């Protein structure tokens, strides 16, 4: 039995801490891979310190957490004092329930309802962008409040109610009595409330996501938007740091409440009936108590915890100097994919701050770029559609641009302000989603490729879509875990138009996928990186640009190669100006800046997808950096890009076809 319980405890411990241990280990990994350890390195911690956007979002998170925790603590303590004064049982029950609702309510409901309220009130007062730092602060205070109340209320009810009266009796005004007598008594609860609020606020993603404005990105939101590509190991480093910070806070907190418990025990003891005569003995003979002096130590420790917290935050705030405040400052709100701009890490240019400086040098005015990120076109669309925030530049993908134009959500671009537009290759300009090139400026494109392990796959098999159906490699093949891309592979293989609306053709594609299913190792999205890098899988179709990430991190016995089957899927992300834009000219200047040769080269190198910028394609520096092999892979010989693109890229589907696709997909996954 004893052994069993030990094993049980061990299993639970492993469940709880194994993920953290893995995170910790890989944060010190020298290589950019989850499967290959290449020795201890602080590389990712250094990278983290260089990533100014992440650090700014960390600072934002801390500023938000600290201010919301303080305000929630003050308000919650006040509320608890008020509730404690209530005498009516019904009123108490009502307040108890009311304060509990936000705690039990799912975050997503709280988040959506808060967003709705902010947007609604914003509309009422005629504000163009109703979500900002203040709304996020209000949201965080809202969900922290009940926790503070729940911490403070029990302290108040444990307290002798005569204490504040005694203080008033001895000459204190009611307010002074609260601070001199009541507050020291409830302080442990107040501090616990403060620390809990702080950690809850740092932790929150869902509510923040819904209430975040365009200029204020917290860390969880930033990490989420980074998952567009892969989570880089510098996030492991950050997560490790956060984990230990929170753990330190918890330990301080628990040590304090241990103290508190010991003190309560002492007090209970003292209340037991006294042995009568011993009490009258005057001084030294009375029993010395271990509780002596405890109370003082406790409050000191509490103060210490808060002060330590404050110092830590202040230090971080100093490391990351806040944006210069300038009355003449203009603001440009840019909303882009995660990791889709060179950000100053790993020797890259920090494009955003470079633009801010360049603008000041050329126009004599300060501009502050609020750069925020999203993970999917649909996230971006939802945020834009809510009308809660305004953006000046967005970078949607092709089909989404078509939809935005259709819904009149984009402004026509004044190309007079974008002389660098001539750098964009002619063949990239007039794609189907914007055939007259009025709304979009191509940013980055990608071609779906088949990536394979040359150590496993025979050279003669490596061509066309058939490789994905080759029974020779059963159990080594990966397929997309999203219906559009997966059906796409089957349709390209069968020579069906990928944008077909004919149910028969869709059913044929399904049959093809069913035929492939026994060969498939797994249906995956981002897991493709680890499975391919480690050699567990040998064949996958994925975005061509991501091939370099994979082959760089692949283990030694894996030789990843790539080829483009024909036909295949193309996609283009283009810069657009949404109709909610507040400063169109500035937006156009920014787009023009991104088309400058050196800037575009930096971005192309950083993102490692293909650039439609002719100057980039012809740049020697760029070719040197990428290498010959990569240049071939990124820019295959294509006769008529526009035609191929328009023929094969995914377009918006009508809802009937979408429904059909989803039900067929379920059929594939369930059977």
């Amino acid at each position, binding site marked *: 039995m004893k052994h069993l319980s030990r094993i049980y405890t061990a299993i639970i411990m492993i469940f709880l801490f194994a993920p953290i241990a893995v995170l910790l280990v890989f944060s010190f990994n020298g290589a950019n891979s989850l499967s290959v350890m290449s020795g201890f390195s602080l590389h990712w911690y250094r990278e983290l310190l260089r990533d100014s956007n992440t650090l700014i979002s960390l600072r934002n998170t801390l500023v938000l957490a600290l201010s919301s925790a303080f305000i929630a603590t003050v308000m919650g303590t006040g509320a608890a004092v008020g509730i404690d004064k209530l*005498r009516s049982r019904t009123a108490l029950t009502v307040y108890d329930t009311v304060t509990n609702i936000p705690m039990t309510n799912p975050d997503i409901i709280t988040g959506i309802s808060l967003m709705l309220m902010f947007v609604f009130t914003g509309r009422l007062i005629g504000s163009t962008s109703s979500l900002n730092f203040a709304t996020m602060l209000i949201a965080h205070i809202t969900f922290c409040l009940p926790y503070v109340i729940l911490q403070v209320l029990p302290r108040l009810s444990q307290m*002798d109610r*005569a*204490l504040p*009266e*005694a*203080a*008033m*009796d*001895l*000459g*204190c*005004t009611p307010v*002074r*009595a609260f601070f001199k*007598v009541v507050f*020291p*008594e409830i302080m442990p609860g107040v501090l616990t409330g403060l620390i809990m609020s702080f950690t809850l606020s740092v932790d929150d993603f869902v509510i923040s996501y819904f209430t975040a404005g365009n200029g204020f990105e917290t860390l969880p939101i930033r990490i989420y938007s980074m998952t567009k590509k892969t989570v880089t190991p510098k996030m492991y480093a950050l997560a490790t740091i956060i984990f230990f910070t929170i753990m330190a806070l918890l330990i301080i907190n628990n040590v304090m409440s241990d103290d508190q418990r010991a*003190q309560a025990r*002492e*007090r209970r003891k*003292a*209340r037991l*009936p*006294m042995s*009568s*005569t*011993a*009490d*009258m003995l*005057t*001084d*030294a003979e*009375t*029993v*010395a*108590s271990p*509780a*002596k*002096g*405890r*109370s*003082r130590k406790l*409050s000191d420790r509490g103060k210490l915890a808060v002060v330590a917290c404050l110092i830590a935050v202040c230090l971080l705030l100093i490391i990351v100097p806040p944006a210069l405040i300038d009355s003449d400052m203009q603001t440009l709100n840019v909303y882009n994919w995660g990791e889709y701009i060179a950000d100053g890490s790993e020797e890259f240019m920090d494009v955003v701050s470079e633009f801010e400086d360049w603008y000041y040098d050329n126009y004599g005015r300060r501009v502050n770029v609020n750069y925020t990120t999203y993970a999917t076109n649909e996230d971006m669309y939802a945020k834009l559609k809510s009308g809660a925030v305004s953006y000046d530049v967005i970078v949607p993908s092709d089909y989404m641009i078509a939809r935005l134009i259709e819904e009149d959500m984009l402004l026509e671009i004044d190309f007079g302000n974008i002389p660098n537009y001539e750098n964009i290759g002619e063949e990239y300009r007039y794609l189907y989603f914007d055939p007259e090139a009025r709304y979009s400026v191509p940013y980055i494109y990608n071609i779906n490729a088949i990536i394979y392990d040359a150590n496993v796959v025979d050279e003669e098999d490596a061509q066309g879509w058939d490789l994905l159906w080759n029974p020779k490699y059963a159990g080594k093949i990966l397929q997309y875990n999203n219906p559009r891309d997966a059906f796409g592979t089957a349709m390209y293989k069968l020579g069906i138009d990928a944008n077909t609306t004919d149910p028969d053709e869709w059913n044929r594609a399904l049959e093809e996928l069913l035929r492939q299913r026994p060969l498939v190792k797994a249906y995956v999205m981002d897991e493709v990186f680890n499975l391919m890098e480690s050699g567990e899988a040998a064949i996958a179709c994925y975005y061509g640009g991501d091939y370099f990430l994979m082959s760089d991190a692949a283990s030694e016995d894996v030789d990843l190669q790539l080829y483009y089957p024909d036909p295949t899927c193309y996609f283009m992300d283009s810069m657009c100006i949404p109709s909610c834009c507040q400063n169109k000219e500035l937006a156009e200047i920014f787009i023009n800046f991104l088309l400058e040769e050196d800037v575009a080269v930096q971005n192309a190198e950083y993102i490692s997808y293909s650039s439609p910028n002719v100057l980039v394609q012809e740049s020697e520096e760029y070719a040197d950096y990428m290498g010959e092999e990569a240049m071939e892979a990124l820019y295959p010989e294509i006769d008529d890009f526009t035609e191929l693109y328009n023929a094969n890229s995914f377009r918006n589907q009508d809802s009937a076809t979408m429904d059909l696709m989803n039900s067929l997909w379920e059929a594939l996954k369930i059977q």
Partner: protein
Amino acid sequence: MDKIIELKGITKSFGETRAIDDVSLDVYDNEFLTLLGPSGCGKTTLLRIIGGFEKPDEGDVIFMGRRINDVPAYKRNVNTVFQRYALFPHLNIFENIAFPLREKKLPESEIRERVDEMLGMVVLRGFEKRSVSSLSGGQQQRVAIARALIAQPRVLLLDEPLAALDLKLRKDMQGELKRIQKATGITFIFVTHDQEEALSMSDTVVVMSSGQIQQIGRPIDIYNEPKNAFVADFIGESNIIDGRMPKDFVCTINGRDFECLDGGFAPGEAVDVVIRPEDVDIVDPAAGQLTGVVSSVTFMGVHYEIIVDVAGFMWMIQTTDYVAEGQTIGICLEPDAIHVMKKSEFSGMFGDYSCFSDEYEEISDPELAAAAEEE
């Protein structure tokens, strides 16, 4: 002696419950006055009105000739010793006692001197650095008294300060309190439900019931000359028997005339007759003015407490001579053993020992008790 506090027509209600009902009371300088009554009688509410923690609905509180109804507690020259002491747990003993002086921002040297003096008075020198929780109940009590007295109030209010102590310690503290009151010359207003405590310590006892004052007087007068059945029953043990006054100095009980010392009633007026258990002489049945049958005998240490059935009414008698259960005895009453009271609202409620219980708490209205608790 000067009046220090005058209460004039004080009324106070909590919701539907009337806690204080038209109470008027004068408190004199230097006296030890006790508010005595069962829980829920309004004595604590009255104390809190004087302390400034409650506002009367009607009536005036006059302090040294000035109306102080609207003066908040922290501006009144009155201090309170709370029932459970209400010491500040986050401060040590020295700082607890120094609290009122720190509020007055007195110089440190004066604070040290006065706290030391107070610690001497309550015999707690050497405890300055100790925490509140390391002290025993009696010690905490004395700290509370020192803290209340250090600001040199004109009046000290004590709200059942001894209730939480055990019997022996309570007796010691009674003496201690009396000594401190004499030494400081400060007026004490003391609230208790313990009649013994009230009688032994007070200069003046105010007996309260249902928000009203039943009797004010010196302890000896309250005991010997209770005004009505409630007071007679609440203070000590009493047999309260229906009687008549055919004329002055003669009263009729159970159809027999007894000589007594009271007069001034209408001829033939129905009255309550109080006979204290210790004033009854037991004699041979043949020699007795009344006879009865012993129904129970309880040994109490100094004496026996016996219940005697006298013509259907149960008398309590305290005697040092043993009598057996079932024995028929004779009873004799001296004139000064008989105290005659006018009939009152309490007549017939007390003074019969047929269902003997000294749990006087139980007679009080539970709602009223709840209201008193909530204060």
